[in-house]
């Protein structure tokens, strides 16, 4: 029986007043280079969905020569099925804040933003208070905790666009521009917010940084597998008995084990979406796969954002497809043609499927559209927008040959 590995979820009972900010205090005694090295050594990968090594990003950011750099905490958690960042913001805002300050110190950024999705009203209230308290406690502002480091932090509320979770779109949004992705390169680390070097990190990534920095030794590097270090917050929802946020050590169990940890399925299990709607599904007979970046990739899916959705056989697959398609049609930013027009047409085909029944040609056309979108869309959000739909069609729909 799989058990949770409590690393990040420590200190749940604490608050701003009785949390000690040990990670921050220790960090302020190190040089930036030392912190970046420790994070690099920890093997931590970005928890927003793309899984880019955090240490590498910071190294790149640190090497940028600029008087002004920005650090942005990406809390625009919009991936359907994902609510682990909300969990952190509502329950451990102090740890998220600690991670933000450490990251800023490590990359030498004196200004920062936390961009929280507008629908998270409770998280916004809590974090607003957290920032205010932090200024009173000397955790933000000039000479943080008596050090030479100054850091200002502002909270920005998102206006409800999925694409603003993409870092370049998020930067546009903060600048007051239309939420659509920028052309890379230049990468935000080179030229981001207001054309200054900008580091964008996910909430969970930053909270993990705070925890890693607490210990003299690098505990994180001993957890998980070689390619998937540490633990991951998995938010499980759908047809399970105990939907919640669970902390899983990479490689400690399979997808089936995680479903069991969440109380087991309700009804007869049909398939699981391992990492949010941008990832491909795995059917009930494919769940014997270890929860790591590499194993899920090999199985044709991804860790994604950690938003796991369990789906039983009690649902109409076509309705699910249409619902998901509707989401991506509404949320494609409309800039690049493959994503905008591709998703629009996929929905048309799915409507036809609902009216007329399945035909092999539908799958073929959607397959072609998916390939064009996957290979040519402008941002990661677009590229992954057909994974779910295509994998359901691929695994469940076959024309009956008479």
């Amino acid at each position, binding site marked *: 029986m799989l058990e949770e590995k409590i690393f990040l979820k420590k200190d749940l009972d604490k608050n701003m007043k009785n949390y000690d900010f040990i990670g921050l205090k220790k960090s302020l005694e190190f040089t930036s280079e030392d912190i970046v090295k420790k994070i690099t050594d920890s093997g931590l990968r970005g928890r927003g969905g793309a899984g880019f090594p955090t240490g590498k990003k910071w190294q790149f950011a640190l090497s940028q020569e600029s008087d002004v750099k920005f650090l942005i905490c990406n809390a625009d958690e919009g991936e359907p099925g994902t609510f682990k960042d909300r969990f952190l913001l509502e329950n451990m805002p102090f740890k998220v804040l600690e991670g933000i300050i450490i990251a800023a110190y490590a990359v030498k950024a004196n200004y920062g933003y936390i961009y929280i999705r507008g629908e998270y009203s409770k998280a916004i209230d809590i974090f607003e208070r957290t920032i205010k308290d932090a200024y009173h406690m000397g955790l933000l502002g000039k000479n943080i905790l008596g050090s030479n480091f100054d850091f200002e932090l502002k909270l920005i509320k998102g206006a409800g*666009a999925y694409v603003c979770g993409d870092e370049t779109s998020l930067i546009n949004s903060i600048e007051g521009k*239309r939420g659509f992705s920028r*052309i890379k*390169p230049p990468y935000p680390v080179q030229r981001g917010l207001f054309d200054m070097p900008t580091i964008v990190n996910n909430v969970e990534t930053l909270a993990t940084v705070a925890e890693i920095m607490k210990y003299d030794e690098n505990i994180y590097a001993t957890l998980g597998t070689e390619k998937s270090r540490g633990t991951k917050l998995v938010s499980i929802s759908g047809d399970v008995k105990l939907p919640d946020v669970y902390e899983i050590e990479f490689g400690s169990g399979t997808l089936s084990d995680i479903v069991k940890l969440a109380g087991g399925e309700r009804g007869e299990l049909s398939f699981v979406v391992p990492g949010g709607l941008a990832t491909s599904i795995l059917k009930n007979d494919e769940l014997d796969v270890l929860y790591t970046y590499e194993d899920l990739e090999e199985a044709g899916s991804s860790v994604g954002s950690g938003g796991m959705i369990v789906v039983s056989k009690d649902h109409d697959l076509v309705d699910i497809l249409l619902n998901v398609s509707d989401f991506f*049609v*509404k*949320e*494609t*930013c*409309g*800039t*690049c*043609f*493959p994503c*905008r*027009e*591709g*998703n*629009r*047409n996929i929905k*048309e085909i799915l409507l036809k499927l609902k009216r007329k029944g399945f035909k092999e040609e539908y799958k073929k*056309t959607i397959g*072609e*559209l998916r*390939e*064009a979108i*996957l*290979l*040519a*869309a*402008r941002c990661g959000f677009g*590229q992954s927008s057909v994974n779910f739909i295509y994998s359901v069609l691929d695994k469940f729909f076959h024309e009956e040959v008479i």
Partner: protein
Amino acid sequence: MKIYINNREYDMPQDISILDAVKKANIKIPTLCYVEGMDPYGGCRLCVVEVEGSRTLVPSCAVKISEGMKIKTHSEKVRKVRRTIMQLIVASHGISCELNCLTCPKATSCELKTIAEEIGVTKINIPPVEKYLPTDFSSYSIVREPTKCIVCGRCIRACSNIQSVNIFTFANRGPNTIVTTFMNEGMGNVDCTNCGQCVMNCPTGALHEVYHIDGVWNAINDPEKVVVVQTAPAVRVALGEPFGMEPGTISTGKMVAALRLLGFDKVFDTNFTADLTIVEEGTEFIHRFKEGGKLPLFTSCSPGWIKFIEHNYPEFLPHLSSAKSPQQMFGAVAKHYYAKKLGIPKEKLIVVSIMPCTAKKYEMNRPELAGDVDFVLTTRELAKMIKESGIDFKNLPDEKYDDPFGITTGAAAIFGVSGGVMEAALRTAYEILTGKELEKIDFVAVRGLNKVKEAEIEINGKKIRIAVVNTLGAARKLLEKMKNGEVEYHFVEFMACPGGCIGGGGQPIPSTEEVLIKRMEAIYDIDYDSKLRKSHENPAVKKLYEEFLGEPNSEIAHHILHTHYVARS
């Protein structure tokens, strides 16, 4: 820098895009949203290529080459993706029976068609998307049909990158994304200058001029009406293009012949009133210069520029020359002088202009100018009418303009290019101010396609600083500098379009830099080959002053040939 394109090694300069590098290797990658000289947008994704080591395909317009890069421009994978995207674009383009390609304004210059061929699209599996978007008829100059729009944003970038006017924006999300104007007010109700650079840059027929073709046919067919036509200087070096002639072919004689065949009663030349403009504007400059009037003097021939300054820099309005543009001077002279000469009421005289310009359609409707010009046809519209009449344009024998408004000078001809009005004015102002004949008639410093050109000349021992500006983006920059006191001039020529009227919004499409250079060279050829090259030497202009206007800037000249401006901010 060494790179590999389709397995062959090439040595390329640093810091260029993949697209430019591939072009140097004589391979063409299809592009749609990309326009040379404007910021890459990376929206259409047709220019994607395979780059070894990259998980996804790479947009070649937006990514620079790097040492040892291995690029595949037309692999099976790339071609397949391009075909799929092209199908999606065509499906979103709103083709239906009413929007048939046959009737499209871009029927002969459709980029979608060209690109579809380049990509090798043989069938479209995706049905067209139905759109219900109203056509914008609010402007005097330009019609916008959003059903044909593929949302590539080229009009937005032309309006902002080139012109700094910024009337267009994206609105809504996802597939509902549309290009629109502020608060969806329509092009006629925002700060649009009517310059038509959006039309020139639209790859589809979603933007086109307001057609006056039907009105002109009705006038020609009305036996009660005497229909006269004037042709702007930049039309004659571009009109051959829609008939397959090389850009820069001078087709003045064929154009005159074609206009007669179409049924115009008299064929006149706007160049005549360009000469008149120079005499009026030159005299105005001399007055201001001698008597300490408002300087620098700004030229006022470009109606796009006029609307731009009215909206954006009303504090500079007193600098504008009060002289009407050559088109409006022609209209006024025709209605007030020529009609009398013919002995007909002016209502019976119909004045049609052939212009390289969309803003002229707005200009003729300005309340203070209305009534003098009845219709404005763009170069493109004229080509349509010639085709529609079955006229074999290429093989027409040359014919000459009618008198009296057919006698013109080389100074008038160069009105069609950026720097031309300035040069023409200097030729006249110099001789009037000094009383001496100009030795070196060509002011080369103000020629060429550069957006800002400056020069200093000496007249009677006094230094005169001049500047010549084309595109409104460059105009904005210069006016800002002037505001901050960074620059000082005595005389500035402003033209709204790239290269001046030769790159006007009514010209044949495409008007690339290559094409503009050829048109420009042709204009200067016309000037060189002219017997008369100074406006004040035009005998017909002299005669008009003798018979009707008195002298330059006289009371009657002011009444007929000058106008005023409106602050619109």
